[in-house]
């Protein structure tokens, strides 16, 4: 085994500047994840692509600044999530009104694709819970990262995640009710 090189003295440590990613490279790297996140949030592929286009257009316009952020992808996700709520304001109002007017909430329709049932259940959660679940499970974001994206505290994220998991478990059936509080602490 070759001897370890002598570590540099503190004065000699040079932190290489973080490589600034071009917008095109970022776009290629993150596009599919963003579309997936937008799909999980909205449930419609066309709407998801439009949302991603909007978010990436905003990023493109501000790339000289955004590219220097520690986590440009977090900033783009913040734009996407905020934009989705604006779009929801228009497109989801009917569905929300319809659902709320039913005295006995209808069970989620069983779609042919079993995964759709999962994503439909996620979308039926209160907005922040839905966003936290989507970011955590689809996007593999940590609680701290989600807090950064949603501009809130980690404890708030944890609360949303816990409540979202409880509601999801109830929606998906009794097999999922077991110990579902634990995930919020991960």
């Amino acid at each position, binding site marked *: 085994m070759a001897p370890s090189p002598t570590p540099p003295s503190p004065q000699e440590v040079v932190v290489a500047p973080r490589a600034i990613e071009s*917008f*095109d490279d970022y*776009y*290629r790297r993150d*596009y*599919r994840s963003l*579309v*997936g996140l937008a*799909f*999980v949030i909205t449930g419609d592929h066309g709407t998801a692509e*439009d949302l991603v*286009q*909007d978010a*990436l*257009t*905003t990023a*493109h*316009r*501000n790339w000289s600044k955004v590219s220097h952020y520690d986590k440009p992808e977090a*900033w783009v996700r*913040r*734009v996407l999530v*905020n*934009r989705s*709520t*604006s779009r929801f*304001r*228009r497109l989801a*109002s*009917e*569905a*929300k*009104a*319809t659902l*709320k*007017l*039913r*005295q006995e909430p209808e069970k989620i329709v069983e779609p042919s694709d079993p*995964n759709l049932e*999962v*994503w439909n259940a996620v979308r039926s959660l*209160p*907005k*922040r*819970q839905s966003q936290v679940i989507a970011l955590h*499970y689809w996007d593999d974001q940590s609680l701290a990262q989600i807090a950064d994206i949603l*501009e809130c505290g980690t404890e708030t994220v944890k609360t*949303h995640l816990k*409540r979202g*998991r409880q509601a*999801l*478990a109830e929606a*998906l059936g009794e097999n*999922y009710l*077991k*110990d*579902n509080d*634990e*995930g919020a602490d*991960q």
Partner: protein
Amino acid sequence: MIPGDPLDSRLDTAAGELRSQLGEAPIPDFEPNKRVAAPVAAVVAILIGIGVFLSAPFSNNASQVDVADDTSIDAPDIDGDSGPVVPEPAADSEVDSSDPSRRTTTELETAASDVELTFGQDATQPSSDRVRPDLGQLRNDPAYGSVITRLTDAGGRFSRFDSNRRVMTNSDNTLLITHVDDGTSENMSIIDLESLEQVAVVDRDEESELTWHPTDPARIRHLSGGDANNGSLRLLETDVTTGETSVLADLTDRIQQIFPTGTHMLSAHGRPGDNGNFWAWVVRDETGAPIGAVSYDLAADSIIGSLSELDPTASGQELPAIVDEGLVNGPGDIESILVTSDAKYVVIEYAFVTIVHDADFSAFRAIENTGDNADVVATPDGTDAYVFVNFNTPSQNYGFLTAVDLDTLEQTPLINLFDNANTSMSVSGTATGKPGWVALSTFSCKNEVGADEAWTCNKIMLMELGGENRIVPLAHTYRCSNDEDASWFTIPNGWTNRDLTRVYFTSDSGRCTEGGEIYEVIVPGQFAELN
């Protein structure tokens, strides 16, 4: 993640399969301008006939509408105790002929002058053989005799409007703004209400919040866009006769002194006060996050107040228990900002709570958890009300269309929607010239299969606030009745012009497509005589 946890496993599986599907899809080339509209000049196309509507009226080639004489009724049942009074519809009331090339106000009002009003919770069923009327053809509603015209054609996708809270006709009822999607692109078109021809295209999207000038029929006030890509902190005005757009108020510096990161603003389906001067907007940053709200008086060119803390619980003010319960997730995003017609109050609908603020944001009170498809309404005694369907539990008015006095917060239940078909309902308080009346449009009924429709179902009607709470049904919407197939783009979203002589709504005429088209109901002449 929890190893072995069934919920985590289910979510992981779903995420994995979605990744597989997305991994196979090609990544499109980035097109930075794909959805970014709103060039500097707002009006890009002045098509035909512009200017004519401001001078002499169009010649009248239309024939008179044949409203049958046998639609007379007894005196209206204004106390509501003896059931609805219904005119006998004429057998041929759907086949009136008219030249669609011109519709004059005189012709329309003459046609509507003999229509008898119906009062009460009437369950007359919609016609089973009614067909989609030709564009511009005047019809009589089979149940209520009201004169109705289809004003737009869906074309490639739809030609509709987006809100029950905005008056989309101009101050002299000659022009209509419609949101057009031809299948490849969207625009906001200006339709001449006599010829029904498109006279201008405003290259803005619906989030530019086009709002007619309160008195000048040629001017539209609007924002530059609805997001960080095309929005701004400026209020603009466009003259549709010339296509010129000017800056009515540039609030950039003033708003950024309050909210340094603010980039654009929206009322989000709200509207200004009735004089067109008092506005309120939510201010958003470049990521689209709401960071505050401002109220603004255009006449004085002055910001009246601002709201920097969007979480009402942070003020330390004690909230009603029901609202506390609704705030377990925080107030949520701002859904819309409404200004009362007298500019006394600003009502903010958050995702989880509805708050009424003084116009300068110096004080606030919680109304309820949520209110959907609701509106603010002026009452005859000069007070303001917020009318909404109360979905909140526990609440004594759960399931009721409810009016809230914004001075006292006293609630008045109006209609029990859980007592018939659990219909969904939109409220419009745009008739500011006829205080005390709202337009209600209903959709998504939950009737049993094969059962008659409940009295609320798929209908446009007027309702009195206060007094005897009279209900005046005007027409059925004939929207796709199968809730599974009905499109969001065909929700009626009924609204009225300011003086409540016209009511407008969207329908697909039962085709169960996205093809929302705009219909106009002439409010029967008798209505103006009601106290």
